[in-house]
């Protein structure tokens, strides 16, 4: 049963046909609220930090170094990291480098479908400032304009070793309760949407796909 909200809280979902409008929620995302008791929240963060499930979406060249990371040599499983096939089960989204506009659309859909609390790691130089393809007509340069990124790992490509280090860093951040990218997304939702719609010309999806 889809809850209907007051108009001030609803999304337009203007990209959808009238028929499809019925199929998607028009509710805005809600910010994550920590548990009122700090010890409980700390425990939850500890648990989250030690079971990072990665969305296996080979968005760019970065995918090439995720395979060594997940296999025997670097064996990320021992850090509680596992690859998951679907966004619904994942808590960490790894953006593997550049994103073409067409991929950006899928990235946004996948990211929004992830269950909170969720985190984003951006690999390589391209998400930071455009990298190799800074002057390409088909890629986006600064990723933080479209998706809140919790951690950047520079390199082209970043080695699996530094991915391990990055994951450890992310764990520390989560344990310290400083990974608030998803909340940032909620708080600045309109800004992010406006940026996304600026580059994605054929916006034929709901404004928020949760």
């Amino acid at each position, binding site marked *: 049963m889809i809850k209907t909200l007051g108009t001030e809280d609803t999304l337009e979902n203007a990209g959808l046909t009238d028929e499809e409008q019925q199929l998607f929620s028009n509710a805005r995302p809600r910010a994550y609220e920590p548990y009122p008791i700090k010890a409980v929240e700390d425990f939850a963060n500890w648990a989250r930090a030690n079971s990072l499930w990665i969305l296996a979406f080979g968005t760019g060249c970065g995918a090439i170094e995720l395979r060594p990371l997940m296999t*025997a040599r*670097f064996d990320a499983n021992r850090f509680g990291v596992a690859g998951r096939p679907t966004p619904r089960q994942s808590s960490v989204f790894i953006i593997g480098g550049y994103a073409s506009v067409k991929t950006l659309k899928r990235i946004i859909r996948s990211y929004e479908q992830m269950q909170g609390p969720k985190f984003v790691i951006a690999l390589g*130089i391209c998400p930071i400032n455009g990298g*190799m393809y800074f002057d390409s007509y088909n890629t986006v340069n600064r990723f*933080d304009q479209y998706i809140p990124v919790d951690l*950047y790992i*520079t390199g*082209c490509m970043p080695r699996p*070793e*530094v991915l391990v280090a990055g994951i450890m860093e992310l764990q520390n951040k989560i344990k310290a309760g400083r990974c608030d990218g998803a909340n940032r997304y909620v708080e600045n939702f309109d800004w992010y949407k406006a940026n996304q719609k600026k580059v994605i010309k054929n916006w034929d999806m709901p404004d928020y796909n949760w």
Partner: protein
Amino acid sequence: MNLRDLLSPFFVWQRAFEKPYTSIRPTIDRPGAPAYRGFHINVSEECVGCGSCHSICQNHAIDMVPAAEFEGRTGDSGLRPRFDYGRCCWCGLCVDICTAASLRMSNEYAWISEDPDEFHFTAGVDDKPWQNNEHGYRRAEGYHLYPPKRIEMDMLSPDESVQSFEEVARGYSEAQAKLEADRCVECGICVATCPAHMDVPDYIHSIRDGDYEKGLQLMYRTNPFPATCGRICTRRCESVCPVGILGEPVAIRWLKRFIVDQVDAKDYPRILNDQIIESGHRVAIIGAGPGGLSAAYYLRKKGHAVTVFEAGETAGGMLRYGVPSYRLPDADLDKDIAYIVSLGVDIRYNTRIGKDIDFEQLLQDYAAVFLSTGLSVPSNMRIQGEDHARVLSGLQVLADVASGRDPGIGSRVAVIGGGNVAMDAARVSRRLGAEVTILYRRRIADMPADEEEIHESQEEGCNIVPQAIPVEIIAADKPQQVSIKWGEAEMVQDPTGGRPRPVLQEDRMHTDTYDCIISAIGQGSDLDFLSKENQQQLAIEWGKFTPGEYQQSALQKVFVGGDVANRTADAISAIEDGHHAARGIERLLNPDGFTATQTDNTGEPA
């Protein structure tokens, strides 16, 4: 399906007894390989800020930013590369092209941050943990992205050159010039170093394009003596050329000469297209040397009526009298001067200020006066017996030869001094058939003469005796001869600072006899034409003017320049003084229309 197929997967158990692949602590145990291309290291002291790394970076990941501690160093742009690790792809081309080999890479690869704006740093300036890493990518020996060796200029062999006054350097062919022009990395450090700030990279570019007319136009913007400077410039540009740090500097001077040699003098008016709109002001210039004529050219372009007063019979000053024709043929000097004169510059020869016309008179008659009389009085050694008839002055010998007179040097000559005049006097003497010994009080490396002049004079058979201090000139037995007593010197470090100084060793004295001794230990100015009052008014220090802004002296209408007003005493500085003074005079005469970045008649920056 057979049984073997069914069982074979269980073979994996065998691997349980093998060493696992897993790296236990990957972040600690696995540094990058010794030649890994990791984060950048820049040895800032070696870096000259040429910006080649910036030019070659296809991702615009390198910006050249000012680094305060390196500003103002000679041959250093004061800029240092700033890296953006949101762009860098670690290709290492910047390391490969680095002219000073100061840019390297460490084998460090980990940089994680929450903030995308954080991935910037100025290598070698910002403190980073990897900047002393011993490992990392370095350019391999024998790997170049530009040719390190210069294209050799064809030269007359010493045997041939010593026979005649023909020009020694034969000039580049078009193919040679293009290859040499190709070596330029277009950093512009030469522009900053050149006293005249000639636009070197651009005219070298015009050689690559084969557009010599454009090259000529570019050169005339800052230097109306390109044919001359293309031959005898002291080329401070080449001494700072970053290509020369690991290889040989770009032959900027020869390339300049090449452009001029490609253009016929009769095409100059069409190419340079100097349109003159008369301004009605009259300006006097004292001395028709490079400084005076340079000022004349730029003043004439501004439309001022220019009169040049020259004490000698011809124009060119030291370029004509002081530089022998095997270095600068008269035809090439005349090419430059003829174009300046063709713009309507009035030169009054054989007119000495103070004798033929009074300085005060000039001040009254002209709106401004540019004074560049040069250094024309040879210095004395002030040693016993110096006034002997067989002691000649180097300048006099050169002037005699330039005017076709016989200096009467005989067949065994000693030249005293280590400057360009000494070298020229020695080489001229060789051409006149004499056997030449050069006595110099310091080491050969300390000689103020151009390196190539020293080298060529040695090749032509001049015997250089370094660390030889003359102490006395003695009359010889024959009246046509003269003896010199000189002592060997040891170089001693001066505890009060400065370069090592020669100290005479009194126990090692020698006396040699020559047909003549040519003294070429320097020249001084002759400012006697100025009245006592004027002398007191114009700031003069050690016989030289100390001009203010735009070469203006303490007297508002008087501008000074050339050897008599600068420390370097070379042609290119004199040319810039003239150009600069022309700007100053323009400011004086036309204060309303003057801006610092004013354009001249051709619509280009003056």
